[in-house]
């Protein structure tokens, strides 16, 4: 009798534990999700869209979660708002799509990549942004990551009235060792591209050349005066890419002089693909409206030429999440869907 009882008790215990485990792995309500981002916004007004790509993306995500679409109430309501610093959202019980799983979402803005990584390691953040250069390491270390489709464009934009600017733009485009930058500095993330719109969006991205020809670049840069060169010094990835471009340019005999001014001859910038519609995305970048692929191609080409751009890479937006975060999805343009996210072990 006793062995039978003991076995029965053990079996019940196992069953209860399995049931509890299964229950924890099923979506359930409750908990607070803490997100840290580098961008910061000062207003929740949907009409006041920031120009910085990261901030614009953040604001779009927040506006979508709070206001949903077309002014309809979103899955969350604003619980606390500290401009440029923090935003707290709480679940909207009356959301048409049903109450979100999360009780509360805390978004901490203006956090540097280093602070984000530190908070994540210490368990003070559930979701952080992940630079492309760290995505590979995180994946190799078994971290939970999520990335969008390539939706950010790293490009050189030329400015000024130098007569030889177009020639030097061509020389610089031919001298940049894109594969080396992608393999080493971007840690094989993103795509090499000579186009603004990524291949997944336009389908004709391969038509824009992105090859390297140092000999030709040397010819074009012969006897050229130095070019002033600027980038966002706060962005470590941009800085490393810019430094490599300087080294590559020197190989072709072209001198780039780093400068802090906005009036530099060449600037390394990040452009955002704001829409998953090619026409809208190009229009958002400043191109002409077009729907036909051929016209879209021509419009993009015209935009690149008119703005004197040299697109270099297409990069995704990536996030790293704690292991307790489930159902986090990053849309193709980096958008969130917080109403689907649930926490495995919800904190009180």
């Amino acid at each position, binding site marked *: 009798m006793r062995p039978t009882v003991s076995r029965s008790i053990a079996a019940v215990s196992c069953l209860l534990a399995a049931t509890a485990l299964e229950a924890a792995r099923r979506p359930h309500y409750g908990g607070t999700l803490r997100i840290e981002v580098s961008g910061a916004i000062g207003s929740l007004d949907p009409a006041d869209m920031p120009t910085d790509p990261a901030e614009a993306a953040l604001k779009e995500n927040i506006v979508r979660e709070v206001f949903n679409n077309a002014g309809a109430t979103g899955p969350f309501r604003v619980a606390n708002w500290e401009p440029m610093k923090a935003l707290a959202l709480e679940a909207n019980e009356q959301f048409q799509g049903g109450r979100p799983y999360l009780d509360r979402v805390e978004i901490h803005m203006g956090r540097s990549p280093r602070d984000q990584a530190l908070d994540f390691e210490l368990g003070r953040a559930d979701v952080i942004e992940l630079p492309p250069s760290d995505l590979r*390491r995180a994946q190799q270390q078994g971290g939970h990551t999520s990335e969008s489709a390539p939706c950010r464009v790293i490009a050189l934009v030329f400015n000024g009235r130098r007569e030889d600017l177009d020639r030097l733009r061509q020389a610089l485009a031919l001298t940049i060792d894109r594969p080396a930058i992608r393999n*080493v*500095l971007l*840690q*094989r993330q993103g795509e090499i591209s000579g186009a603004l719109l990524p291949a997944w969006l336009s389908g004709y991205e391969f038509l824009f050349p992105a090859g390297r020809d140092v000999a030709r670049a040397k010819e074009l840069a012969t006897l050229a005066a130095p070019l002033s060169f600027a980038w966002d010094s706060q962005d470590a990835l941009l800085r*490393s890419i810019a430094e*490599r471009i*300087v*080294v590559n340019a020197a190989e072709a005999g072209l001198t780039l002089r780093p400068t802090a001014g906005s009036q530099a001859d060449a600037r390394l910038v990040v452009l955002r693909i704001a829409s998953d519609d090619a026409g809208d995305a190009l229009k958002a970048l400043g191109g002409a409206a077009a729907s036909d692929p051929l016209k879209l191609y021509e419009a993009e080409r015209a935009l690149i030429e008119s703005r004197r751009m040299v697109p270099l890479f297409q990069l995704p937006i990536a996030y790293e999440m704690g292991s307790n975060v489930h159902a986090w999805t990053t849309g193709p343009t980096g958008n969130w869907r917080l109403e689907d996210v649930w926490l495995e072990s919800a904190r009180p």
Partner: protein
Amino acid sequence: MTFRTRLLLVSSLTVAGAVALVSGGVSAAARRAFDRIAQERWKGVLDQFQREVELQYREVEDKVERAAAAPAVLQIAVEANKPEPDFSTFVDEARAQADAQALDFFDILQPDFTIISSAAAPARFGYRSDWLIAPEDAAVTTPFLTGVPGDNGSAVAFAAVRVVSAGDKSILVAGARKLDPAFLASLGVAPGMRAMLWLASGDVMDAAGPVANSQKLAGLLDTIRRTRQQVSATVQWTGDRASAESVVALPLVHRGNLLGALLVGTSLREQVLLERAILWTGAGVGGAGILLGVLMGFWTTLRVTRPVAQLVSGVEAVACGDWSTRVRVQSGDEIGQLADAFNKMTEQLIEQRDRAIQAERVAAWRELARRLAHELKNPLFPLQITIENLQRAREQHPDQFDDVFRESTATLLTELQNLKTIVGQFSDFAKMPKPEFEAVDASALVREVMKLFEAQFHAEGRPAIEPVLELAGGGVQISADPLQLSRALRNLVLNAMDAMPEGGTLRVRTEARDGMVRIAVSDSGQGLSEEECARLFTPYYTTKRHGTGLGLAIVQSVVSDHHGRISATGEPGRGATFMIELPPRSEV
């Protein structure tokens, strides 16, 4: 320049020269001493530099050794042995190792020196290292000094290279620590010195950072670039000489490449200040010495030259005719002996003069006696003859005695008159009174004198004399005794008339020239020889048959009393000219 001035000058120059020599000697000795100290200090700094270099070598060697043994570096070495190595994940490893080992430069390289990861130039992955290292550097285990290019020019660094192997293939790690102001500060140079570092890129730094006015080193650096040997020079950093430094440069060379130079500067400030102090002290002492020399020299020369001055005064007095002058010098030296000799000389001169005067007096009396005898003998002889005629007529021709008596008494009276005249002239010469000066127009006086002789110039029975007056217009004023000067002029006119028995031209001229008034009396008579001109004014000398020889002596006496002088010129057969020169009125 007087003897006293010369003596003062010599004594002052002697003092100044002595001070200058002493100052120069002290300055030179001080400079040599400073140079010797600087040399010793330089050697000390060089030794310290060598020790510090060894220390740095060992540190860099240890650090590179530790970095080479780091797991991450070993992992890269393992990756290198894979068929398709992927170094992309190690791109930041060099920076991590550099931070961990506190190295300024750290590169992880493939065997062909292609950069896998670079701490100082992370963007240069895939490129070949541009350090001044060669495969031989990887083969040796000892550290070395090399050049490392950077964004701001090339740096000189202590470097070490290690080979890290994890299989068949290996990688290289190269670490370096640059020579910077901190390194220069660690040399601990003595006060007044500083260590500087010149880099081939052109930068010059010392322990405090970049060196201002480093272009002043251009000459020195050009020399070291050319010779690549230790050189030295003096560099003056500012306009103040006290800012100068004696700089010794030691080239830093690696594999034939001049990386830079260690410069050790020794401030010359103390030396310059000491030299200035010596100079100013010398100037002060020299000035005081010169002043003292002047005073002492003045006192000395006063003592020395006073007897000389007394001698000079005595000589001048003697020269002026005061032969009774005596010099009182008490000293027994050469000056005293000279004074004694001078006194003896004046005494002898007086004795000789007295003797000469006495002799002259005797001679004059003899001459007077001779002249008197001569002059008196001439009338005495007719007197004797006349008296003998009277006696003979009384005895032999008493009937004719009356006639003879009349004739003889007439002759006797005539001769007696001649005797009276002769005696009168001698009396006049002896009784020449002092002139009574008054303003006189010389031309008017000449005119009056000539008027007295107008009748005689054209007297019957003798050839005519043509008077010609060339008198200065407007008159010529002199101070003179008109009676004496008129007498003198009359004598000259009479002489001229006597000199022209056959008639002729008597020319009298007055003029004021060269500050003197000249009265010239010229005749066209028989003329005078040179000897006659020289002796003409000697008393009792005459060229005339019946002259007493006192006329021209009287004239000369008058002219002399009027502070003038008279001279005679002429040639035999061509007439003679007597020239009286008198001072104008204001100068009398």
